[in-house]
């Protein structure tokens, strides 16, 4: 029944597209632009309602571009597999290689060694460490690695879930939100970041390096960490304040493992080399190729086998991001992005949010709303060309507009489904949907204000 209900969106989407191809072309848009707009709207409906899995939507985009005569087959293929998509693929492979090692136990031990047994310090430790790791290898990976750490701390404290209900929520959300706020820290932290890099380059000829990204975005994470830890701790007052017994149990578990193996060291080493290469030489050889060098090193060193990568990389994701980028490039080339941007600006001019910080605030709000309903990648993919175009037309910084769009997709604290980190943690079964709301709304507010402050202060100082 619900399958059938989902399928109905295929017909609704296609019908909307068909009607758009039939009606007269609005002023300022070419007939080709109208076709492109129809495709964008249909893709938007599909991304929101997911009548088929998202990789299927990506395939639909590729096929439609050729069938509607918007692009030649080779052109579509090229936009599907750019250096940015290589970068996404390479980052996912590196993440898979790291997850395969049992570093999670060591990380857990390192955290509690640093923080001691007091719960408020452990929360701060979990948020910080999840954030720092996620800023390099993505929130999916970090939640997969850290969820067992959280579960272990809960189980070692009490076997009866009911006695440690708040503690469970607190630890789980520390991991999820920690990972979530950090995905924007470096280009490799999230695939959507790579989309924005691709748009800057392909649409506006702007080359932002890995290092420049870090300088602009990382301070936000550092500022958010204490807020997240504080708000969570205040919202879910834990039943147990001292986790000493759990920590001893955890220590015993890690001691079973023995010392770091040669393979562990090799993994850490290759990862660090990759990050250094990203920081230094990637603007010459491309972020994607750099990532692939890292992957090759992992394979040569025998840390991962192809089978591991094959099983632990979500290949569909790569296709989805390829599709999103391809759609974005088409939006720009066909004039659709410009047309939407112009219409938007004429519409908002009377209310005075057509440039500068007010415009960025509006963009951020729009992004938060959209990414609550569809995946962050699709949100950046669809919204990116439009927000960049709006900024370009209104004389607002393209870099700032791009950053605001990407960063705001991380502000989806309110639901379990909007971010991968929350979704994975929710799958662990320690949370109810309503738990996300309880602390989430405060964090949305804090993050939103923080972003505006950064944009008006720090970014202006950097001159971006």
């Amino acid at each position, binding site marked *: 029944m619900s399958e059938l209900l989902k399928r109905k969106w295929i017909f609704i989407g296609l019908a909307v597209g068909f009607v758009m191809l039939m009606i007269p072309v609005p002023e300022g848009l070419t007939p080709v632009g109208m076709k492109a707009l129809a495709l964008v709207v249909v893709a938007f409906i599909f991304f929101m309602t997911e009548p088929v*899995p998202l990789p299927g939507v990506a395939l639909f985009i590729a096929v439609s571009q050729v069938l509607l005569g918007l692009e030649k087959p080779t052109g579509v293929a090229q936009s599907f597999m750019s250096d940015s998509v290589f970068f996404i693929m390479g980052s996912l492979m590196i993440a898979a290689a790291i997850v395969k090692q049992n570093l999670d136990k060591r990380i857990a031990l390192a955290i509690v060694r640093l923080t001691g047994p007091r719960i408020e310090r452990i929360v701060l430790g979990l948020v910080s460490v999840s954030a720092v790791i996620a800023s390099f290898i993505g929130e999916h990976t970090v939640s997969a690695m850290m969820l067992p750490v959280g579960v272990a701390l809960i189980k070692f404290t009490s076997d009866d879930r009911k006695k440690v209900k708040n503690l469970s929520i607190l630890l789980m959300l520390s991991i999820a939100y920690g990972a979530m706020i950090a995905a924007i820290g470096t280009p490799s932290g999230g695939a959507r970041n790579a989309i924005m890099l691709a748009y800057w380059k392909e649409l506006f000829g702007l080359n932002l390096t890995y290092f420049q990204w870090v300088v602009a975005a990382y301070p936000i994470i550092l500022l958010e960490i204490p807020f997240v830890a504080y708000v969570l701790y205040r919202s879910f007052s834990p039943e147990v304040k001292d986790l000493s017994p759990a920590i001893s149990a955890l220590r015993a578990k890690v001691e079973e493992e023995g010392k770091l193996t040669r393979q562990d060291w090799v993994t850490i080493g290759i990862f660090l080399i990759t990050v250094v290469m990203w920081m230094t030489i990637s603007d010459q050889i491309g972020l994607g190729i750099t990532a692939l060098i890292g992957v090759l090193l992992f394979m040569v060193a025998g840390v991962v086998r192809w089978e591991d990568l094959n099983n632990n990389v979500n290949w569909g994701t790569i296709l989805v991001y390829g599709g999103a980028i391809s759609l974005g490039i088409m939006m720009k080339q066909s004039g659709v992005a410009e047309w939407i941007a112009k219409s938007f600006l004429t519409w908002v001019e009377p209310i005075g949010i057509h440039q500068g910080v007010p415009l960025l605030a509006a963009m951020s709000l729009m992004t938060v709303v959209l990414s609550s309903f569809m995946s962050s990648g699709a949100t950046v993919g669809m919204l990116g060309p439009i927000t960049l175009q709006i900024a370009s037309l209104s004389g607002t910084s393209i870099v700032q507009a791009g950053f605001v769009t990407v960063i705001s997709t991380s502000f989806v604290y309110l639901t379990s489904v909007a971010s991968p980190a929350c979704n994975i943690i929710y799958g662990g079964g320690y949370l109810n949907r309503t738990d996300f709301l309880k602390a989430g709304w405060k964090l949305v507010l804090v993050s939103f204000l923080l972003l505006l402050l950064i944009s008006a202060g720090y970014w202006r100082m950097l001159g971006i």
Partner: protein
Amino acid sequence: MKFLMCTDGEELAEAAIRFGGRLAKGMNADVSVLHVRRPISSSERVQLTATRKKLSSWDLDIPGVDYLTRAREILDEVGLTQVPLSKEKHSRAFEGGVQGATELYLVGAGGENVRLRLREGDPVEQILEEAQVGGYDLIILGSGGGRGIGSYFVGSTALRVADLAACSVLIAKNIRQDHNFLLCTDGSDLAEKAEIAGAEMARVLGAKVTVLSVAEDESRREEALQSARRAEMILAQMGIEAKLKVRVGPPSQEIIAEAKDHDIVVMGASGSSAVRKFFLGSVPLKVMEYGACPVLIVREKRGKIPLQAG
């Protein structure tokens, strides 16, 4: 005879399992306990698999296993299982199986008549699918009777399962130690099936039985009395003595009022068409929703007399 019991780990579900376990023991039934895990979007499935591997490397159970382990302990306590669960409990879940369902093996678990199963997805859909694939005769669900958003078995899930299932459904709420049965009859064939099933269950639990027949107005009181007498005869043939009662008024209201003095209501599934149900509501579902005690809705599975022991 196969029972499917569902747990979400809440106390209400545990009470339902304890009750269902006693019933299953008396009726010599095969039991499966099902927990439906929250659905996760397909794009995160790869990471979730990685998480599960990590959990097992920490010797931690995958999510949901603890609920099933607890259910198994309860079934041990009521004596349904012959070999109690060993202290050292390691679980191994086997992925795959019937259409995504996972069968769970607990080391030290004895008694082949109890199986533990995990599924993932929408609770109603998964319970119904498991019930259908496994060919169960009775689904037992705990319910808080309210419509809170806290527990997903509360309210709407239980009601939807009761409405859509192809077999009999027992919604267990406010379970008490006594088992005074209230058998509702309207003289129809479906009601007769319910009477047989209810009587069988009452015999297993050693319960007292009251037969209730509701007349919608005074002019139909005699007709209602006839139905009740017929039920009494059926029960007598099964060796069960029953009190008779006739009430006049709207059926669901009268049944709910009478149920206050009883511990379990037994009734046949609504024979109404979907359209009729949509406009008028179904009496069994109303009783289930607003009544204060467990409700057994009896449905006949094709070619089978419902809920016969053995």
